[in-house]
């Protein structure tokens, strides 16, 4: 049974149908890619899968549980974590605070008016461990807004990791990154894939074909092709399309 599954997802905004029929299954321990042209509905698909928008039809299953229409914070607590295409950080907070806020252990004591935020060594160590995974442990006490663009991307991923997810959704993690930063990110995700199930939207086809075990191609709000990177490269439709040229 797939760890995460979407069945016949439909989403419309007014008269505009954005997702016509999205079905996909993500096996535990794999990296699943979602690709498609601009406006294909990839990010909306992420928004629906992670609870930002409820679907109009269809169902979403996580570890066999129906999570269709649940609120984002409920889905997040179940172990579904995500990053955003447009960076979403707590910019005025220091780097370590961004991560601490996402730790389930911190959330468990978040209602307490008596604790010191940074007084719990265990929580600080947990946060530093997560930051170490993305190479930001040395910048823990800098403000998030002062980081470089690439480091902010890494912090986005760190915040998602801090939530101790079972599946990680990454929305265009290479957007705006240079070649070197992209290579660093590939190395990071290669490292993360050993511990997490990952679903990633990406425009950079080289990036995606290098990382993904399976890929869904989304166009006109539907999954039009699905398969392994090798299978997609051999697919005639993909080969004829602009997507195929890049691949």
């Amino acid at each position, binding site marked *: 049974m797939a760890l995460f599954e979407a069945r016949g997802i439909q989403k419309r905004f007014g008269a505009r149908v954005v997702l016509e029929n999205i079905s996909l299954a993500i096996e535990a321990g794999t990296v699943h890619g979602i690709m498609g042209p601009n406006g294909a509905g990839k990010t909306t698909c992420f928004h629906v899968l*992670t609870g*930002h928008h409820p679907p109009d039809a269809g169902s979403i299953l996580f570890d066999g549980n129906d999570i269709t229409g649940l*609120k*984002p*914070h409920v889905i*997040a*607590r179940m172990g579904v*974590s*995500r990053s*955003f295409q447009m960076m*979403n*950080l*707590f*910019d*005025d*907070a*220091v780097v370590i*605070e961004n991560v*601490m*806020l*996402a730790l*389930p252990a*911190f*959330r468990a*004591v*978040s*209602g*307490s*008016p*008596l*604790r*010191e*935020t*940074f007084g719990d060594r265990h929580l600080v160590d947990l946060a530093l461990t997560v930051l170490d995974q993305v190479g930001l442990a040395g910048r823990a006490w800098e*403000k998030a*807004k002062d980081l470089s663009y690439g480091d902010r991307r890494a912090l986005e991923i760190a*915040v998602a990791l*801090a*939530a101790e997810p079972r599946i990680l959704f990454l929305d265009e993690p290479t957007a705006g990154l240079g070649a070197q930063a992209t290579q660093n990110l590939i190395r990071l995700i290669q490292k993360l894939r050993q511990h997490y199930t990952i679903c990633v939207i990406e425009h950079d086809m080289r990036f995606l074909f290098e990382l993904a075990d399976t890929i869904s191609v989304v166009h006109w709000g539907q999954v039009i092709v699905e398969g392994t990177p090798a299978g997609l490269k051999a697919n005639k439709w993909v080969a004829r399309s602009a997507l195929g040229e890049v691949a």
Partner: protein
Amino acid sequence: MITLSDIPARSQMPLTLPMGIFVVVMATAPFWLARVGLYQYLGVEIAIWVLFAMGFNLLFGYTGLHSFGHGAYLGIGAYAFGLFQHHAAISLWGGLFAAIAAASVAGAVVGAFLSHRRGIYYALLTIGFGQVFWFSAMKLHWLTGGEDGLLNIPRPDLVIGPWRFDLNDNAVFYWFVAAITIAAVLLMWRVVNAPVGRVLQAIRQNETRARFVGYDVWRWKWLAFTISAAFAGLAGGLFSMAQQSAYPDVMSLHQSGIIVMMVLVGGGLVSFWGPVLGVVLYFVARDVLGGLTEAWLLWYGLLFVIMVMVRPEGMAGLLHVLLRRTSGQVSTVKPEKA
């Protein structure tokens, strides 16, 4: 110019210099107020409004939720205290408890409606609900006394063990109000530096991210509004003791606007202590400028406009820059682009 986020993170020290200054100034005010040309009752007013402003800033500055109808909860606290004395019992603690409870319940109900919204819609709804409470206070003559308000609200004695203190003595009443304000401010300091305060600030910075790391943002926003209303209610109870009356004017849009101005001018967006500066400036301006011209509020309004345009981080931010300069540190002020 510096931006709001250029101000260093709010201090997490258990005791700080501003806190020490605050406690010392509050505790010694009766000894020097008259010597600087002011009067005892002004201290009472400042202490009550500091309590109100600090509680308001939990919502406004820390959680980033803009309430423009918060005078309503001050008024509800004031009426609840008066009604308790008139219809239940002459009791200091009972009245103050009633003030906190009534404002908390009203805040909880209103907060339940507001917390689904943010931005301008949130702000407009706070005004709408504030007006509903104000209008109700005006029209429910049998309960509130209408435009005349509730009169002859007593100041019950303060009884601590074998000691009894007459709060009708303004000096004694000041000590009582100051003690409550200091205790409440220390409690708020504790809250904003605890995880609960960090979550509120996280919601201010990025509601969406907070939601996606597992926080029920609606519940937190509701909680912030309710707590803020509770402090407003406590301030309202003290206010009705001070005035020995409760009347609709404190619930008006005008009064709700004044608390926003106090917090912004003081620098509540960047400093825990900003609202204190804003409250002191307002009351001193009222008494000093008010002695010179009837149009003092015009000048205060102009000061507000200038402050928002030139120093949106308020007096606290201005003080921060001045302290950095005098201590020889490099200023964070960046040159304006031509």
